[in-house]
């Protein structure tokens, strides 16, 4: 009877040890999982994307891309400049980056004279983007805005959304 009892205790300890080991293993796995740094791109993406947005816009402004793409030399708006701008953005941005640019004219009609109020009017007649709105909803997205004064003294507001394609 006693021997039977002794054997039962040994088995229970074994079971306990196994359970304890299992709990420890789960705990260790959880710890490793939790203390591992988040996926680098996801972790940095917001800030970096914002900065990259500004970097792209600033470099485009410094190179007078908006003047060169949107206007002819005589200051009139180029026909289908939107396609040209998309080409520029496609060339400029990495392939896995989704973009959506909006160009707003703060200078209605092109002449700044005799203006009483300032309001924005979208200058691009078609979307300057390489993705659908659905793509942007699923992705981590950042955006930036700058003002850009053109050679013919229009003040443009350029809005750029960037997102990473997974």
């Amino acid at each position, binding site marked *: 009877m006693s021997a039977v009892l002794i054997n039962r205790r040994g088995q229970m300890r074994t079971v306990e040890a196994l359970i304890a080991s299992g709990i*420890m293993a789960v705990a260790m796995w959880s710890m*490793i999982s939790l*203390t591992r740094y*988040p996926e680098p791109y996801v972790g940095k993406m*917001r800030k970096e994307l914002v900065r990259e947005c*500004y970097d792209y816009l600033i470099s485009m402004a410094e190179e007078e891309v908006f003047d060169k793409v949107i206007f002819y030399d005589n200051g009139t708006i180029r026909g289908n400049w939107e396609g040209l701008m998309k080409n520029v953005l496609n060339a400029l941005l990495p392939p896995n980056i989704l973009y959506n640019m909006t160009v707003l004219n703060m200078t209605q009609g092109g002449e700044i004279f005799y203006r009483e109020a300032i309001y*924005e009017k979208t200058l691009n007649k078609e979307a300057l983007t390489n993705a659908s709105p659905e793509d942007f909803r699923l992705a981590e997205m950042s955006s*930036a805005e700058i*003002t850009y004064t053109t050679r013919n003294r229009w*003040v443009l507001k350029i809005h750029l959304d960037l997102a990473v394609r997974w």
Partner: protein
Amino acid sequence: MNPISFSADEHGQIILIMAITLVAVILTVSTMIYITATQHLFFNYNPTREIILTIDSDFERVLTRILANATQLYNFTSIKTEEGYERNAMEVAREVANLTFSYWVLSTQAAHAGKGLSIETDFIDETVQEQGKKIRLKIEDGGTIFNDELTYQERKLEQKLFKLWWYRPNSISAIGADLSIDSTIGVIGWKSRHIVFLNFTITAIRSVRSDDAVYVDVSVFMEPVDHPKPVNDLRAENFEVYVFDPTVTLGPGKFWWKRMPVDRLELTYNGGGNYTVKINSPLENPGSSNAEDFWDFYFSFILIRVKDNRGILVEAYSYSGVEYTITERAVENYYPNNPYKTRETYIFELLPNGTLSWNFRNLETSNPRPPVPLPPVKQIRLQATTNGPGSEFREITLYQVERWDDRYLWPCEEKFIEGYARIRNGSKIVFQLNYPPGVREQKVRLIWFDDCDAEMPHRDFRLEYREGIQVAFTKHYTLMLVVDRELANQYYHHIDWTMSLLHKDAPRDIGALTTYLGGIDYILLGYDAYRSGNTYFIPYKIPEDDWTVLPKDDDGDGVVYAIVRAVAFRKTNRVVSSMENAPGEFRDELYHEAMIQIPYDASYFLYYINASWFKDVDIQYSYLVFGGIIGGRIEDPYQQVVEKYKWGSLLTPNGIVVNGTFNNLEGYIPHRGYVLGTQIGDGSYSHWFALYNESFGAAIFASEQMIQTLDKYGKTYKKGGRETDQVFVWTRGSGASRFMEYDAITVEVNTPTKINRYQTPKIEFKAAGFLLEGGVQEGDKFNNDGMWNDGGGDFARPFTRVGDPQATVSGPGELRLEKRAFIWDDFSINPIGSSMTVTSGTWRWEQDAAGNGYLRVDANGPSDGWGGMCVAYYPSGTYPMPSGRTIYVLVKERHSITANGQHVGLLMIENQNRFYSFEYYHAGTNTQRIRIIRYFNNWQNPSSVSLSLSDNVWRTFMGSRTVNNGLMNFRVAELGISVSATNTQINVGQFGVGVRVENSGTSMTAMFDDFIACVDSDPRYVTINDVNPGWRIEIKDQNGNTVFSSVATGRKVVIDVLSRPIIRNGRIEVYDYAGNLMNPGTTDFDAIVGGDIYRFRSSKTFLNAVDQCMMYYRMFLDSYAPVYEIRILYSPLS
């Protein structure tokens, strides 16, 4: 079950519990690490820094855009508004710049709305280039022509957003502003200053004829100011280079200044912002005789306009000005240091090729002439020495840039006076230069401002057109020009004259002008005569057509303004008949061109005519007049009024001046010359004749050309061996008009003359009309009909000498006082026992609350002497009465009368037993009067007028007495009520005041102030003589407060000073029409007292008509024309 045994089994559970505990710790720690590591992902990134940087970046961009746009707009020089009038392009550029700038601020704020940004901007006064900046310029043509450092003035932004300093070897376009941004969620106090500029310098010019090229070294820099960054991306297309090519033949689209095509430019970048521009084959006609001049001289005049790749323009010239030393040869040699030489004023014209001209003639110089560059005319400035070449330079304000045709023959009707356009082919810079006494040479500097905010001078020369008459209101005279004879005749009858010279004080209203008698009329070319009854009328045919007067009246209101001169011209074949009952015109006889130049600030006008006969013309009654002057019009009723021009003088060929008096009767008398078959006196002539009265006159100064042309006609169309040219002087019957005229062919009866167009092909000459201040016959008349025919009487005779005119005044001068008051006392100090002697009564000196003193007397009953009067008087020993016709005494009086029989008044005294009392007498309740009463040992013969004067009110008593006849007048000035009397018994010599109380036991009190005794001038007034109508006179107290002010309507101003007849330490200021103080050195007077008479004496003293003509006529002769020398100014500060 055994509980103890059970406890022995708990060891295995402990392991489990410890494992669970350890797991819990591990999970907690790892969760914390995870949360900590990913915490930032739960917040949005705040990009304030990037936003501010982009705004800052766009701020610099908008400044660049504004500057580019502003420089390009300004380069248009003028911009036409929607209404069609020209605006200064700089104004427009500045408006657009400011608007763009404001709009950018608003747009940027709107674009970043919701980000909590506050954006502010400020204009700045930053120095773009420091004072005294030195930059070297080198000009070489194999040898060194110029090699020196040019010094530049400080260039600052002046809180103006942008500034342009162009047209210098170193030229800059600059813009700058401050930007400050505050963010509510990020950066606070962001500030940045942005200055964008383009700095362009011409550093060297070399001509290398063997290369057929000119090399120009330039340097180009951009911001920042402290460490300029070289501009290294320019190409030849960025440069516009202009050279002055003297080989160009002028014509449409052809001008000496020419822009070099880009394919003739070679650009080499030498690093560090330095370029060399090689101008290949700069000459249009390299084989021309002028080519040598280019390689030696003109190559150094280079204009370069650069547009950098930002779109910013800048324009630089290789030189900064030209200095002309102009020497007169007409007056100073003959009248050295003559203080009366005040009118030697020339109107010079300067052409873009550097030619200087005067009186339709190019002046001579031994130097090559630097060209005038091509800045907008508003940048042009002229400076001249004031008193000889060593004296200070001052800006010439009277200049204008005119537009003429390509060959400079005729002025352009449109935009005759240019404001904003560039100097170009056809431009003339017209300026005025005066030579004061003792000065033969003056220096004139033509410069062009580098500050592009420069403005045009104001136009003050008013021209007005009404009903066919153009009136020019110059500074010295008014000139009426019959522009449209037919139209003018509907309103204003006239026959033969074209211009009328009037005194500048003539009415300014045109309606009044046309009936003004004071003008001297000028007749121009005319020929032939006609006879009606027994009267011959000359001329019959008048070359005539409408004048075009410039500047043109664009807005149609009849009024237009010029600066230094107006120009009238006509070109026509029209000749009209002066026959009123047979009007008509002849188009096939004579083609004539004429021009009149009317300066604003000179005493003359210039006239030029060029007429050619179409055919051989038959003149039925021989007569051809080249020009003349008429005093008195045909429609004037004859009367010998002051406006009539009484005297004439002329220069004869032997240099003798003949003076004569015109007839004083209404009737025709020839005084000099041949007429209708009779030689009356001498008809010889020379370069001038003059017609004048006491204060006004006019002359014609004939040029050598005119004299030669007269002579040629006179010789060609001789009649019976007699040459037909002469000066004809005569009085016309109608209105007793006085004529002096240059005749080429004398008037003949029934003797035609056929003009031979080949023998006398042209009538081309110039002449001047000259304003005179007049003169009077001073020497004795004598009888010499050969010199001046008297017509049988003894009035119209020659005389020996002309006296000074009763001249009008002009220019600053001095105010001279003629004191008429010999006693004046405002009782500011106690007079009792000092200036005044008092008798009985209680006399006291008191002051009111303001500290103003007055004299008080309290009288109780009659006094012992003086007829019972209590008297205070100024003794004759101290105040002797000067001689004069009328004595005036004025005093302010205030009384308190308590009973009947009381008197108060002023006294004119011989002694205490003999005096006149000018008094107020209170006889009874219903009996009060003012009266003049004599005390001659007793009271006698009062003359009185009833008048009641209430107590305790200040009144002004004024008595006067005419010495010779004893006529006396006493008035209470404020009421205008007076009483008169006549008596000569008393010899008045002392003056005072007094009160009399007839009845003992009664008393009265009186007070006196402002006592004045004067001779021959009413003490209620101060008079200022010899001013001009429209001048303003201000009398001020010692604190500078204006007490009295009046505007002259004639030559004299009388100011009523009754309210304050004595002003101690006062000022009198005389201002002319324009508000200039005319008596700067003589404004202050110890006391301005009623009765004072002041006389304004102009510092300018005018010569009589003859002396003036002699002094100035050579100015209008080619042989005495000025000559000039030239120096190039590379730096205006050099």
